[in-house]
């Protein structure tokens, strides 16, 4: 069992938790993720490591309740425990493992969408701690959905914020903001890291391709074990099948088949919709009536 030592609501729909897991806190590197299982009845869900504190033995996760398991996790309070918390999983980010001299040559821009800000943070923090400058773009639908802004500002050289409705920062999406930075503010980048919803990563990659900027994305397919034993998370990169949990989760964004990846994300949409409804209605809804929108 793994204790929740801190819980914070970052905005109306995103939560942060520090979980006591000393071995994971000690070994996790930026780019890696963990798998959490709420209860003995729970499913295993992957969440990216947003920060670690090896001294305190804690690992920070940030998540947005979108389905039954994340809604349930959001109801856990400080002091309560989750059944499993395993990791770190996946390969660390290349920026962390590559030769330092090579990294120094990179003019890096991180592009984060919504809750994707959380997995971007440890990479920017690592760059900062190792003396590398980088720019960060954070985008969200509106001002309320921007998270970790102050934390990010403390480690990024430049932080640019955009909102779809213009309620804060640049009005527009991250792709438009990137275009503005390059074309109007004459920024130069030769390495981009894009993390957010699959559709956002797809379009950001189309943009960076246009500017000929090598781009890394962190994929978030369906996972079960997270250790390479099932292939639920397989994605097609450069025409080859890869397991995101062991070969990734970071891949060359210009080689990822996003349409295929998005189709696979929707495999359990019906089952998940039923379960979300069941959770919200206290497990009294059994589905199958065919009249619920959630069933579709």
């Amino acid at each position, binding site marked *: 069992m793994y204790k929740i030592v801190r819980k914070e609501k970052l905005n109306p729909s995103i939560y942060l938790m520090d979980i006591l897991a000393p071995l994971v806190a000690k*070994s996790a590197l930026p780019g890696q993720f963990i798998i959490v299982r709420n209860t003995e009845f729970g*499913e295993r869900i992957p969440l990216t490591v947003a920060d670690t504190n090896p001294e305190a033995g804690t690992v920070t996760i940030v998540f947005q309740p979108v389905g039954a398991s994340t809604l349930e996790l959001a109801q856990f309070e400080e002091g309560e425990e989750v059944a499993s918390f395993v990791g770190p999983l996946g390969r660390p980010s290349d920026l962390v493992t590559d030769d330092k001299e090579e990294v120094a040559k990179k003019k890096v821009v991180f592009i984060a969408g919504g809750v994707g800000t959380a997995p971007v943070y440890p990479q920017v923090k690592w760059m900062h701690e190792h003396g590398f400058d980088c720019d960060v773009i954070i985008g969200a639908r509106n001002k309320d959905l921007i998270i970790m802004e102050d934390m990010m500002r403390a480690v990024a050289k430049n932080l640019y914020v955009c909102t779809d409705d213009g309620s804060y920062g640049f009005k527009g999406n991250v792709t438009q903001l990137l275009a503005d930075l390059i074309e109007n503010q004459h920024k130069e980048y030769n390495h981009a890291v894009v993390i957010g919803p699959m559709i956002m990563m797809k379009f950001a990659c189309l943009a960076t391709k246009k500017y000929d900027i090598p781009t890394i994305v962190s994929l978030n397919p369906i996972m079960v074990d997270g*250790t390479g*034993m099932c*292939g639920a998370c397989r*994605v097609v990169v450069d025409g080859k099948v890869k397991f995101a949990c062991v070969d990734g989760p970071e891949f060359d964004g210009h080689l990822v088949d996003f349409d295929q990846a998005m189709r696979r994300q929707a495999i359990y949409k019906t089952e998940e919709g039923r379960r979300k409804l069941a959770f919200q209605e206290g497990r009294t809804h*059994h589905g199958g009536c065919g009249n619920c929108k959630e069933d579709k």
Partner: protein
Amino acid sequence: MAFNPVRVPISEQDPKVRAHNFDEVCLGYTEEEAVLEAGRCLTCKAPQCVLGCPVNINIPGFIAHLKTKNFEEAAKEIAKFSALPAVCGRVCPQEKQCEARCVVGKKGDAISIGKLERFTADYAASHGFKVAEPGKPNGKKVAVIGAGPAGLTTAGELAKKGYAVTIFEALHKAGGVLVYGIPEFRLPKEKVVAHEVENVKALGVEIITDVIIGKTLTIDQLFNEYKFDAVFIGSGAGLPKFMGIPGETANQCLSANEFLTRVNLMRAFDPEYDTPVHVGKKVAVVGGGNVAMDAVRTALRLGADASIVYRRSEEELPARVEEVHHAKEEGVKFELLTNPTEILTDEQGNVTGMKCVRMELGEPDASGRRRPQVIPNSEFVMDVDMVIMSLGTSPNPLISSTTKGLDTNSHGCLIANEETGKTTHDLVWAGGDAVTGAATVILAMGAGKKAAAAIDEALSNLNLKQN
């Protein structure tokens, strides 16, 4: 001595009923039936059955105790050789091992050794017999990686010799393939697997779950920071193979490992549990091994019209005869001499069919197996909406790739001495599927047993040198 050539039949759930539930198919012997079957054993002076058992259980010895209804002694006799008798009695391919060598089998039915072992273990569990004791602590620590059959056996053997043993398991539950792979209807998880794991813990073995060696901790850390004297790797062969044919990343195409893990470990068949599993109306399982049989019978129980698709003929099916028989009884269809070439999908990526070709068996190749070859112009589309790939597995490279001095062969299997399990690393032993590639539960246990003896010998010699 007159002998009865016919074995005492075993009760099984009616195929029509069991095709819709996850309860155990084989109901096991009653006390009377077990004693009756034990009575058929000739108690050979030079028993051949023992040689057929990979852990050399004293078979006539434990059966002799059954004849006199001394069930506790029977259980203790088995425990001297095996840590998981309730498991092995159920899943060993006895027809190729102990029972294949039984003398009675030459003129009639071999003694039902597996079913008797199972009866003994189940009886011991339900009566709370304590069958083994931990050894006197010798002050040495051994780390075991993986809580599958190889790891549990090694740990149990070493604990009996007085070692302080810690098992590190990547998943949230101990048992390895016994919990994620073999289905409930062949191997009940709570009644059998959990109980055998508890028996190993009762010997003082500590099991730490949610720790992935190679990620959470490295082998070097186990030696340097945690001061283990030796490490045994029993991490299995969990990496699934795919065919590499078009359409394989379709939404309803998945590995048998994923399908079985969702159903067995995550208990997706039980609505109380959160993990979903999708089951099509018409499911094809590609492959012919035990895992394929497990997957197809699981799909059937979840309501599918389920078929096995295998490129050779029935004779070459690698699965146990008993499993094939059970599958057929339950209504599984067999598309033999058939090989998929493409998985067809709609625009959403859903499976709409599977393109296959018919095969025929050609001349035997170097290994003596008749090679299947495509019959020209035999292409057809099989009407399916879900495909489960059960083509075998290979070892996960996670541990070997993060440990210096640990060599693997071209198949990714750890290189280890066949007799001792010693790897190319000074203080590391290995056994089971991590060394051999996917094999059987009992072979993994046999390897674990040998490695435990070798570890004991090596660490004892070390002691002598130091003194």
